[in-house]
């Protein structure tokens, strides 16, 4: 008996490790690393082990967007604030910029909805909120588009390369005044924020480091087309003392010094943890992860793989508040919906506090509980309420006598509906949704939609389709 026990245990443990993550696990992984969780995707991931599921996510990443951008993104543009324009011309230009900005927001939200790699977009959004630039100050939507391309290219690549690229990025150089930083006339904006918000975090540098680093960044400028240009005559060639080192440093030297400091790995790892795992830091796990990140020269995929495989990640259901984009785009993903005009979804997210391409300030959206206040919570609920009000009537049309669902009939109905009316699927179809995804009961619906049990228990005897409305309005739908 005795020698058998360890062998049995071992067997049990390895079975557990190999066992599939199940629908709950799949919904958790997909919702955290993407936007919502479509039941079809849940079915793909549920049988996989944790490792296999995470590896599948990370092996299907992309570095470009699938959605075609608006035509104007590559057209030449006029510099903002031109002195020689009449009031009317200025107004027309401003209107065009606002229209473009709104199209750009719609374009990105649509990409989040249809991307084959939601984790790529999720990371792009994370970097947008890390290397913050905003249209308010950048002024030119084309530049924000270019920056978005850059962030997607490096989204799961190398953090160090991304830092160097972002520092040379025209939108960033306008946003943090790098382009105005000249010898004898330093502007500290970028030097401060690169340390405080992009790499080390507050408390790991001195005011002198900032002043001297600002001198090192002098000479980086923008030409008349807003492309990066190095202007050696504007560079301060004097000796600088930064982090106790002396030399005639330039901007890239400063960035390398920041990357040599393991505090940068710690700072970025902790921020990713807070975004993907839990608002509560776990010092031991963070140390292990940030050591790995530093050792791997800031490669992001191995870090994300290790983070998503921590036991803490798999125990963290319901600990994060959904961001506005996660809530809105995620709901559309979950129910196979496509809005007729993405600009409306962009406007909604702006009301909810997440105006993409225009974070509130250089620190970005604080996130977490700050997403929810009395105003934003009511707008969230209004959106969800509207969705179920506009939904097709529930007749439980595809429910069979034994309680199972007629999937084939549900699909047929969907196809007929789309063909006959030539409509995009804008309207929630509870009957078809529950038939196609075999949602038999209210419990099935809850498992697909909620990370934690509903705060308001459902009345007994509801069908899967009927449960959708009350579960969308349940406070538990706001967390994941």
């Amino acid at each position, binding site marked *: 008996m005795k020698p058998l026990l360890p062998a049995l245990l071992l067997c049990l443990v390895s079975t557990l490790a190999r066992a599939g993550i199940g629908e709950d696990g799949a919904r958790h992984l997909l919702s955290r690393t993407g936007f919502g969780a479509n039941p079809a995707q849940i079915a793909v991931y549920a049988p996989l082990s944790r490792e296999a599921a995470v590896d599948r996510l990370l092996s299907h990443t992309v570095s470009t967007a699938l959605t075609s951008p608006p035509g104007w993104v590559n057209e030449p543009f006029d510099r903002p604030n031109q002195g020689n324009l009449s009031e009317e011309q200025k107004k027309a230009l401003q209107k065009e910029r606002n229209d473009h900005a709104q199209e750009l927001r719609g374009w990105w939200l649509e990409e989040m909805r249809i991307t084959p790699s939601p984790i790529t977009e999720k990371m792009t959004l994370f970097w947008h909120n890390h290397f913050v630039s905003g249209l308010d100050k950048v002024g030119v939507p084309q530049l924000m588009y270019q920056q978005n391309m850059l962030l997607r290219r490096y989204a799961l690549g190398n953090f160090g390369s991304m830092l160097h690229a972002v520092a040379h990025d025209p939108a960033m150089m306008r946003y943090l*005044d790098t382009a*105005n*930083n*000249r010898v*004898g*006339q*330093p*502007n*500290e*904006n970028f030097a*401060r924020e690169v340390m*405080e918000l992009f790499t080390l975090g*507050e408390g790991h540098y001195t*005011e002198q480091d900032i002043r001297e680093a600002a001198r090192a960044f002098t000479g980086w400028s923008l030409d008349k087309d807003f492309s990066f240009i190095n202007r050696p005559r504007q560079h301060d060639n004097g000796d600088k003392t930064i982090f106790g080192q002396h030399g005639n440093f330039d901007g890239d030297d400063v960035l390398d010094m920041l990357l040599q400091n393991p505090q940068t790995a710690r700072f970025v790892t902790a921020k990713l943890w807070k975004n993907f795992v839990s*608002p509560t830091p776990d010092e031991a796990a963070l140390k292990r992860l940030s050591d790995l990140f530093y050792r791997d020269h800031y490669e992001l995929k191995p870090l994300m793989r290790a983070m998503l495989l921590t036991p803490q990640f798999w125990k963290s259901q*319901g*600990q*994060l*508040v959904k961001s506005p984009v996660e809530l809105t785009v995620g709901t559309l993903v979950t129910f196979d919906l496509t809005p007729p005009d993405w600009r409306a979804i962009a406007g909604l997210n702006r009301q909810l*506090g997440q105006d993409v391409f225009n974070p*509130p*300030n*250089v*620190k970005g959206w*604080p996130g*977490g*509980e*700050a997403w*929810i*206040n*009395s*105003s*934003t*919570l*009511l*707008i969230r*609920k*209004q959106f969800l*309420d509207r969705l179920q009000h506009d939904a097709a009537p529930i007749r439980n049309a595809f429910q069979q006598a034994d309680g199972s669902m007629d999937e084939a009939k549900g699909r047929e109905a969907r196809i007929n509906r789309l063909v006959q009316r030539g409509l995009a699927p804008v309207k929630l179809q509870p009957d078809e949704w529950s038939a196609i995804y075999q949602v038999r009961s209210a419990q099935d619906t809850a498992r697909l939609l909620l990370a*934690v049990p509903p*705060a*308001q228990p459902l009345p007994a005897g509801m069908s899967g389709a009927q449960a959708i409305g009350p579960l969308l*309005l*349940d*406070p*538990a739908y*706001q*967390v994941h």
Partner: protein
Amino acid sequence: MFQRREFLKALGAGLMVSALPNLSYALAPAGYQRLLVLIELKGGNDGLNTVVPYASDDYYRLRPAIGIPRDKVLQLDQHVGLNPALSGLMPLWQNHELAVLQGVGYPEPNLSHFRSIEIWETASASNQFLSDGWLSRLFRQQPLPAGFAADGVVLGSQNLGPLDGGARAVVLSNPQDFARQAKLAGDQQAGGHSDALSHILKVEGDIRQAADALSRPAAPSAIMAKTNMNPADAPTAPPKPNGAFQQAIITLATLLQNGARIAVARITLTGFDTHGNQNNTQNRLLTELGDGLALLRQQLQAQGRWDDTLVMTYAEFGRRPRENGNKGTDHGTANSHFVLGGRVKGGLYGQTPQLAGLTDGNLQHAIDFRQLYATAIEDWWGKDARNVLGSRYVKLPILRA
């Protein structure tokens, strides 16, 4: 029970006019019946170009490109004057309702937007980290009496600032929409949930409580009784707002007129981080500020409650005395602020900026911002500030008895 309460209410409405909510403010000697309005000048308003030391040659030496010309300044005395964009504040100054505070800051200043505003809003020391706003701490220790719609309302920002971390705060854009939408908030009990879900349940509770009070119809008769106005002069339709800041002012005034009881309103005016081409931006923002505050005074005077309103501006920091190379200013330290209201003792307080000999340096503070908070807590509300602020601060003599 119900009948008796209804009876008392009717009695109050008919006979004892002073029991109406709109009248109780002026009669109460102190307490949370009095309103505190905080105006956040987000981004770090440049105090030196707001309250201009126009008699100082050092000022013009440090600001050759962006200094406000001597002949443009609205003079307050022989040394300092207001930025001309603040002309809306001059009637208040002339009426001794405007206190101008120079050199407001704190020891060991931090130049990060985010850390410094946290210091201001949590009322912490520079090296101390507190997680709740100073008003949340006050209202936890010394709560508001029953019958208040909320501890405070937040306008122009999604961020609760000094009301973060526990206060019953309602973020408002439009009170009517709020009351209508509030029906979507459930009535689950908090408890046994993750922090994230508990937070959502708490907000739902705050919404339900506030919605009731905010949806009450206006009570113009009470206002007229108080101010002896004839119906034709009664404030009916509020004026058309000019910009988001004035919109927030109107929203607040409407809310108060409708009888909603709150102790605090915080209004945010943003865009003051003027690293480049400062004067255009600051001119626009200060115009909004001055005209907006004048509108607030006019509205609350019409409601008869200007004497029970105290308005204070704040910001994370002031800006560097020496301008940068882009006709802008970088982050600085001590700053100028305004306190205004019907009971404010107008005048200049603090210390005119010491600019002599200054090159790259920053200003020393003369008034600790926690002195202002202590003044509001003790002299305005009649509450104890010691435990809220962690120590005793010398109060400022800016209020009339």
